[in-house]
């Protein structure tokens, strides 16, 4: 599953999940211990974010291990959010809830393969997927803007899957903190 995820991102993700489970996303934001009660209905909903007693501040964007992660990666030709990125969605959604004045720009990107205009559409779908996930976790639509750059802003220009996987991404950019 994690084959196409860049190594560093994977490590960070694992670390984020671990911290989310053990001590919450933030050292500054105090949280109650995670209540990982199994979903008794059997429904496959996203894991419920652990309730937090504290609120995020703009400073947390630079220091919080979870909030500092601002890139979500996708599989080839896919716009489905992968489970390992749910923790990132959760903490950014909480930030948006805590900071109603915050504005988040979601920049969707695609790898270089195929048509540039089609990849514009693909990048937008990915941005929309992240936007929907943030809204599902309490982010407000007015806080979110999706823009697709298609394949026009690669961060890696080699022609192999390792590189392509780094380019299939949505970047979370706070335009107002």
């Amino acid at each position, binding site marked *: 599953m994690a084959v196409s995820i860049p190594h560093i991102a994977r490590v960070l993700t694992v670390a984020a999940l671990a911290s989310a489970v053990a001590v919450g996303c933030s050292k500054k934001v105090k949280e109650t211990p995670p209540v990982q009660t199994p979903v008794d209905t059997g429904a496959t909903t996203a894991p419920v974010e652990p309730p937090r007693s504290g609120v995020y501040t703009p400073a947390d964007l630079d220091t919080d291990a979870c909030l500092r992660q601002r890139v979500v990666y996708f599989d080839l*030709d896919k716009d489905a959010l992968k489970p390992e990125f749910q923790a990132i969605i959760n903490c950014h959604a909480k930030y948006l809830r805590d900071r109603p004045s915050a504005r988040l720009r979601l920049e969707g990107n695609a790898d*270089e*393969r*195929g*048509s*540039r*205009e*089609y990849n*514009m*559409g*693909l990048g*937008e*779908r990915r941005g929309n997927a992240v936007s929907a996930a943030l809204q599902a976790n309490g982010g407000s639509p007015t806080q979110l803007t*999706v*823009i*697709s*750059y*298609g394949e*026009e*802003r*690669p*961060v890696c*220009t*080699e*022609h192999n899957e390792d590189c392509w996987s780094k380019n299939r991404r949505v970047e979370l950019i706070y335009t107002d903190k």
Partner: protein
Amino acid sequence: MSASRRRPARLALLLCALAFSPLAALAQSKGLEIDIVGGNASALPIAVVPFGGDCGQTDVAGVVRADLSRSGQFRSPDPATLPERPTQGSEVAYPTWRMLKQDFLLVGRCVPNGDGYRTEYELFDVAKQQRLLGLALIAPAAAMRDVAHQISDAVYEKILGVPGAFWTRIAYVTSSGLGRNTRYALMVADADGYNPRAVVNSTEPLLSPAWSPDGRKLAYVSFEGGNSGIWIQDVATGSRERITRFRGINGAPSFSPDGTRLAMSLSKGGNPDIYVMDLVSRHLTQLTNQYGIDTEPVWSADGSTLYFTSDRGGRPQIYQMPASGGSASRVTFEGSYNASPTLSPDGKKLATAQGAGNVYRIALMDRSTGSPRWSMLSPGSLDESPSFAPNGAMLVYAAREGSRGVLYTVSADGRVRQRLELAGGDVREPAWSPLRKR
């Protein structure tokens, strides 16, 4: 490789063909490189004799020779091997050229004229011992390559009965840098890659250039201001106007054949759909409305039909629909991925960027006889953005070589392919201009 009449120049081409691979072309980065794919025995032999007199800095005959060779329809002997160098009809000895197995002969000469030159040229049918063309062009020194391309066009049309498309231009996009530091330029160059100049420079992405039918304007997508927008710019004056600034994607502009409307893809409704804008009233008509990505509309020559890319069936394929609205029907059924449609002027051929796994090639669908026949025009592996020449005889497309993009032209029969010589940067998204008017 059935070459019965082999000259040294041809031998070089054949060697090139034998060693053919995309990398072989890359290895010889200087001078005229032509890949002959599968032989070009049917190409017509035409001797293009170096022009006499004073043509200034431009090798007029050399430009003509390169044009004609690139088309795949002609082959010319190396001028160094020519036993005679006539520059006008009175000096032509037909038996010499018959012995050299040349079907046609082009001779000419230049005379300084004001701040330019008067270029006279004559075309002969060797077998019939008949002069087919005898014309003169007057042009400033800076326009001598234009003169050469116009001669190529005249020769091409006289012999083949189809307009040449050598005196045309190609718009394309270049980029340099990575990520947010990328710089973009919209360029226009001669169809052989010479005389490139920047039409737009931007720190934000530029893409999807499309020519107006009169060749005077370019529509394109720019991200300046933070989101995609469609712009129309006058190529000569540089004056420009933003046409759309809708929420979401503003993409894939395409002028109608009469130049009065612009088809485009907009995602303001939630996902990319095809729209047509009346350029006078700015009235917008939505043509598709369904879940999925609909983009890259292109018009049939009569303006009645739009072809576009859609993944409504799962993966991207080409669909067609009436330009006035209605239901769409799928056109491409070969290849798991087809996008970036371009139509030949007669509407019988449709080229796409066709994907299979990680390999993307330029594919051509010929519908002139009953069921569609497909052929591959490029070797891959990341070829994209095909654009037909306005005479339908060639296409230009973008390919990857190492970390940079390059442009190739290929004859519509796929036999002759040439990399365009363009200065640095990552080059992509070529759009071949309409025919120019003198």
